[in-house]
């Protein structure tokens, strides 16, 4: 077997912790897949259904009431809004007017008079909760929601969070990391307040968080500084035989990575021209045969030359059009086949991540929660549209696993908001 074989006798006596944990998860997951394979097609179709009503019930309930066990999320309430409302939007449902008004009002109370949104009324503004609040308001759409964002003050807040080393601090005196960079840049981009001051040296700072780092680099026009072919190779290997994605090598599958890793692959696919350049460059530099170089196709040589010139000239003349990067990103052509296994990922999400009582989860045996509901559904949407030549053209039934009614709304993968709502927001903020 090419992939990991069952243990030899010696190995079976002492599997490592990683191996043991992995085999336990595999056996749960494969049990589900085997059951699925053994039942007739009608039953299979039922098993593959997105449990819309149940999910909506679970999600809506959360908007109205959360038990005291949620006290530990008392500083994350805009996140709860985003996870719930984005999930509802993905399912193609609408929020009723009253809830919408209440949400706008509530988030306004989380908005700090000096800019930014806090985790709850009376708390300090924080970049992550700002991201969640802004994305929620964009998802709701409409003038009232969008106009409630105090952009000028928000810009001031971000400038204060900006660090000399190029990164961003999550809050006054808070941690500085790639998540902070992504949340800041994403919000600034979608609200049309991104400028040189916010961008400078961010690229130098980006480190560990793959999706956040990649998305932020794309938004500031510096994706070419990353080793994209290696990143792509790493990302596609995060999908395992369980069909879902893991967060890190040799760790366990988790439904939320359907978005964080699946999304990274989706982003990378749209950077195909930079990837091709980098791959061509890599093979040029290592080649030891002169003959090989001479016979290089014209296309290959010129691409290599162009690539060099671009890198040399980068700092001088070229200033990325960051006002339009987010918008252009979804309108550029991309490859027709997803590089991850879309059907397998859908299978994991539908069969293993759905809670039959509503909501989605990490893996079988784990409890459902709003965070996983949001990112499993976001990942599912990515899968369904991964073949589409245009970002929101309806997919063919054969690429949607289960009944066609499983189809969700398409998202903008850089910001993770429903595409239609992104477009509305862009129009609203573009003139400001």
């Amino acid at each position, binding site marked *: *077997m*090419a*992939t*990991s*074989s069952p243990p030899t006798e010696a190995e079976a006596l002492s599997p*490592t*912790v*990683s*191996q043991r944990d992995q085999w336990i998860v595999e056996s749960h997951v494969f049990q589900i897949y085997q059951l699925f394979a053994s039942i007739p097609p009608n039953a299979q179709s039922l098993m593959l259904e997105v449990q819309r009503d149940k999910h909506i019930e679970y999600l809506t309930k*959360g*908007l109205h009431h*959360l*038990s*005291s066990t*949620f*006290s*530990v*999320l*008392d*500083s994350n309430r805009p996140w709860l*809004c985003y996870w719930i409302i984005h999930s509802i939007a993905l399912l193609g449902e609408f929020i009723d007017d009253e*809830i919408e008004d*209440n*949400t706008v009002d*509530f988030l306004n*109370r989380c908005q700090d008079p000096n800019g930014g949104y806090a*985790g709850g*009324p*009376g*708390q*300090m503004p924080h970049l992550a909760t700002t991201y969640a609040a802004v994305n929620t308001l964009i998802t709701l759409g409409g003038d009232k929601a969008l106009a409630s964002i105090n952009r000028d003050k928000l810009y001031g807040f971000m400038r204060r969070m900006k660090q000399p080393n190029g990164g961003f601090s999550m*809050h006054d005196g*808070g941690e500085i990391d790639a998540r902070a960079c992504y949340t800041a840049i994403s919000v600034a981009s979608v609200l049309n307040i991104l400028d040189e001051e916010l961008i400078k040296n961010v690229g130098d700072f980006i480190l560990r968080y793959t999706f956040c780092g990649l998305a932020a680099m794309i938004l500031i026009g510096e994706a070419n500084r990353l080793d994209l072919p*290696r990143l792509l*190779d*790493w990302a596609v*290997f995060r*999908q*395992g*035989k369980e*069909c879902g994605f893991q967060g890190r*090598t*040799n*760790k366990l599958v988790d439904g939320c990575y359907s978005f964080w890793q699946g999304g990274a692959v989706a982003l990378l696919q749209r950077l195909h021209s930079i990837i091709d350049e980098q*791959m061509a460059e*890599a*093979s040029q*530099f*290592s*080649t030891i*045969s002169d*003959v090989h170089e001479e*016979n290089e196709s014209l296309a*290959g040589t010129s691409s290599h030359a162009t690539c060099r010139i671009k890198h040399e000239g980068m700092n001088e003349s070229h200033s990325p059009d960051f006002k339009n990067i987010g918008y252009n990103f979804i309108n550029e052509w991309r*490859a027709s*086949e997803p*590089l*991850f*296994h879309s059907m*397998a990922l859908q299978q994991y999400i539908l069969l293993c991540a759905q809670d039959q009582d509503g909501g989605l989860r990490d893996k079988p045996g784990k409890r459902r929660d709003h965070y996983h509901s949001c990112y499993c559904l976001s990942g599912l949407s990515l899968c369904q549209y991964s073949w589409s030549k245009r970002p929101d053209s309806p997919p063919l039934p054969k690429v949607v696993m289960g009944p066609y009614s499983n189809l969700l709304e398409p998202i903008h993968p850089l910001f993770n908001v429903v595409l239609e709502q992104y477009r509305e927001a862009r129009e609203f903020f573009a003139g400001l």
Partner: protein
Amino acid sequence: MAGIIEDENDDRVPISLRPEWSDVTPIPQDDGPNPVVPINYSEEFSEVMDYFRAVYFANEHSSRALSLTAEAIGLNAGNYTVWHFRRLLLESLKVDLHVEREFVGKVASGNSKNYQIWHHRRWVAEKLGLEARNSELEFTKEILSIDAKHYHAWSHRQWVLQTLGGWEDELNYCNELLAEDMFNNSAWNQRYFVITRSPFLGGLKAMRDSEVLYTVEAIISYPENESSWRYLRGLFKDESALYVNDTRVSSVCLKILKTKSNYLFALSTLLDLICLGYHPNEDFKDAVEALRTWDFGEQDSDIARTICSILEKVDPIRVNYWIWRKSRLPQVA
């Protein structure tokens, strides 16, 4: 649910009954008339936060405020505003940070995957400086002994090494962890961190040779372990020509291919080498051919294309990726 409140400590005296708080008016949360995602706080929680808001908005720097932040943290360790205010208090009250370190340690034991706790821990350690080094290394080691892949613990440990030092035993520590579990990618990651940055080891170039030997051994014991193959690649970061020309790299690929078992990464590594300019000899071509288990279709004279075809079949989850790789192969001379 009258009278039923989870986790309430029966000995607890409500703040409103504590004489030292009698001069303070608690401030209720401004949730508005119809909040969304409303949390059904316990009475204790509401009260603590109402009094916290009072001292926070008044910017009261006192020891009662400090105690109150500890109560608030106990109820919600994710409240970054409370942690921030606590730091301001620790500074103005000039509190002994050794005591604070113990406090954070206790909070962490129930909440180890919380950003605020680790950020606070780092702040305390930074203030204590060099003398904190050993305790921080010990602390993270304890956490890692329970969860050897704990993200925050590794992150903190790396910060400690870079800021406060203590590199001497780190490579050894990695060896231990890998001996326990060769699949621990965090341990491989730390290993890379150590060999590239430890002031005692001389850097990547100096360490490369011995590390290649170590990694090749690891690959041979568990050829299905992605971590070791990626580590091997990392040893030649920015030096593709060296990676291509190091016979130990290509040899281990060949060795594993010949076993016809767990050869996925051997194949993909060989493919990468070829894409970087490696020219495999007949031994490689034979070994690859031996893995081609289907009769249909023409035999491809291009070994790279054959590798892609095999991978499409034996690594089906990545079939589209291998098809794409095949389409992106460097032109054959």
